[in-house]
């Protein structure tokens, strides 16, 4: 196992190198000048002299490869540079945003699983019943509603109508509740449908009929066998969702003023804040590789027949 993990982590290095180089190249090729963005941010006119001076100070006049080389050298020392936007170090910015995103993602995922696993199983077991239809319908609606609509509706209902929460809340349990709900509602809607489909597939297998004919109790078939077999694909779905969640949800973060990675990345892209974008790419790449690794290990632990290689 340790050898496998070491091998996978070693594969991370060329991925990160290739990815950061590619992103750096794309940023340099794409239209948009960080110096110009900085100067014209509030709509004040720009002069060529100011622009040239700012470009010089920001080091943008150096060739692309030199800039990338310098960035890589510093990054290998653990220094991700300073933000073009405000001159603050990138690493603490990313750490703060990643912490917020991790809190939001883990709470949303937990809530989604708490909702979707029982409902997914229930709808599969009670296929064709009224609860099945009702839950599927709700899941369809939850899945179809865009994030911003869910967010604003939640705010309107729980802050204005019921007055259970304030609109402005941050850094508290209250501040976390509404964004978690806004992320968890569509996520659990998606999970319910996928878990239902997996459980149904397992229930339709011949071995389930065989166990039933041998008089094995339905609960035992469901919890000890069907769910065990369905766990692998469900884990894949969760793994993929975790990757997305860690990338951040810009809309939810903006509406609820949650200072996560998605908003940080979007603001950085708008401002052509290359150091922050590079740091974000580096971090998400590590996240994705890490999550994939954990998923593969979990597969193996759930079913040792699945080899790690």
């Amino acid at each position: 196992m340790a050898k496998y993990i070491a091998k996978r982590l070693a594969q991370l290095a060329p991925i990160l190198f290739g990815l950061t180089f590619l992103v750096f190249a794309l940023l340099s090729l794409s239209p948009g000048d960080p110096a110009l963005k900085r100067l014209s941010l509030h709509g004040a006119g720009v002069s060529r002299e100011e622009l040239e001076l700012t470009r010089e100070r920001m080091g943008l006049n150096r060739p692309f490869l030199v800039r990338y080389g310098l960035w890589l050298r510093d990054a290998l020392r653990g220094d991700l540079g300073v933000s073009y936007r405000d001159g603050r170090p990138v690493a603490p910015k990313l750490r703060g945003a990643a912490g917020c995103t991790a809190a939001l993602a883990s709470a949303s995922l937990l809530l989604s699983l708490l909702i979707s696993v029982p409902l997914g199983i229930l709808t599969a077991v009670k296929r064709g019943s009224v609860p099945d239809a009702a839950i599927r319908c709700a899941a369809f609606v939850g899945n179809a509603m865009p994030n911003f609509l869910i967010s604003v509706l939640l705010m309107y209902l729980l802050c204005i109508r019921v007055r259970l929460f304030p609109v402005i809340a941050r850094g508290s349990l209250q501040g976390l509740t509404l964004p978690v709900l806004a992320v968890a509602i569509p996520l659990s809607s998606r999970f319910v449908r996928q878990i239902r489909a997996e459980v149904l597939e397992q229930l339709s297998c011949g071995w389930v009929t065989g166990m039933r004919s041998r008089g094995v109790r339905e609960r035992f078939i469901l919890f000890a066998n069907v769910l065990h077999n369905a766990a692998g694909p469900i884990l894949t779905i969760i793994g993929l969702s975790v990757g997305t969640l860690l990338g951040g949800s810009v809309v939810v973060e903006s509406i609820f003023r949650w200072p996560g990675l998605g908003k940080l990345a979007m603001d950085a892209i708008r401002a052509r804040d290359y150091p922050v974008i590079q740091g974000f790419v580096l971090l998400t790449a590590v996240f994705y590789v890490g999550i994939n690794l954990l998923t593969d290990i979990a597969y193996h632990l759930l079913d040792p027949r699945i080899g790690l290689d």
Partner: protein
Amino acid sequence: MNRRLRAWGALAVLSLAFAGAPAVRAAEKKILRAAASFAYGSLDTHKQYYGWYTSIYGITESLFRMGDDAALQPWLAESSSVDAAGLTWTITLKKDVRFSNGKPLTAEMAVRNLLRAAEVNARCAQLKDFRIETTGGRTFTITTPKPYPTLLNDLAGTELGMLDLDDTKDFDNAPVATGPFVIEKFVPEGDVTVRRSPDYWGGPVALDGAVFYYMQDDDSKLLAMQNGELDCYNSVSTSALEVYRRSPDRYRIVSIPGMRLQFYILNEKRLAPAVRKAINLTVDKKAIAAFLAGTVSPAVGPFGVDTAYGKAVIPACDAQKAREALEGDGYVRNARGIYEKDGKPLTVEICYYAARSLDTLATLIAEQLKNVGIASTLRVEEDADSTYIARADFDLGLYCMIADKAGDPYNFIKATLREGGYYNVGGFKNEECQKMVERLQYEPDAAVRAELANKIVQIAVDDNAFGYVGLFNKTTVLRAGVSGFAENNPFDFYGISAVTDKK
């Protein structure tokens, strides 16, 4: 079991509800709660645009300021004078100005502030070319190599707020300045809390403090306002305005023409004079302003009509004359109702970026052009400066810019009408105009400056080089009883002050 469950449920709900209690309790003191659409990672007044925000938060003050009437006023400075040659300015500071730590603002400290801003901010770099010297405890001089009539306007820039450079240990988080408020809590790129300065040099301060919540989303701001969690904010969206207008007893809306101009550049290298004329006669600014429902006032020229330099005369919108201009140039209408010449339909490429309502503007202009027989294609770019402005590959390029940054027309004219100006990319060139722009740079007399500016703009108008569409209104919503949030000041960089109050 059920009872226990219910008890746990009630406890959970109560704990959630009380988690936000401090925010509610803060309202018991005279704390203003405002929303801010921008938030930065630093409070270093002299850098980038951070001075706008330290000024909005009531922390910093400059030597001069722009009044509600867009005229220059002394602020920390008491008086100023310039010698006969227009080269040496003498500025005297007010006697009682003190920083929040009680130390007086001296001329030496003011000079050091100006030099620091010149060093760290590219937009203040012109100060490096000047000789700035202390001549007394409260007096200093600025000598420029050539006459620099807009010096005092430059000194009104909020980037030139005065800091105690000796006692400020952390420029990013805790600047020591002269304003009526001091920082209580600063979250980089987040909320900012200020409290009343204990001994403000300018007299009593009405508020105990203020909180600026960083909120980008318009719906969140509206809901927070409705829920009583916000007292005021500006840049109100059109949809939110409608809601506020329905409750005049709860909300006060102040909307005044601001300084942000929506305009378009007509590319002279790609459009014939007759086509440019037809376009300018077609674009109906009043209809556009009406569509934008109070967020924009129709522009006459680039500057406010109340200013002495905002007197350009622009031909009224007239579709018939537009058609005549095209027909006079040999265009004929085809079966689709679109003008064509030599079998080639007249199609204008409109470039825009999706901000400051320019997307709406592009669509409306395209529709108006179509009505007179000019077809158009729309091209949106995320970053105008680096794309169509830099490459000049457009027919009609929309842009939004602060036209009047400091009560003087020169900056806008320099950027858009002077040869080599960053936004003079449509091929506008006029010898007489260039001479007047050169003269405007050094002309000290305000009346002559206004006359020159009007003539320069008129030449561009007559050449149909540009189209000035609308001036953004500065729209502020205030809860009943709230006043003094710079709601009557057309500039974006003022906010709370000693007179801001909440009843």
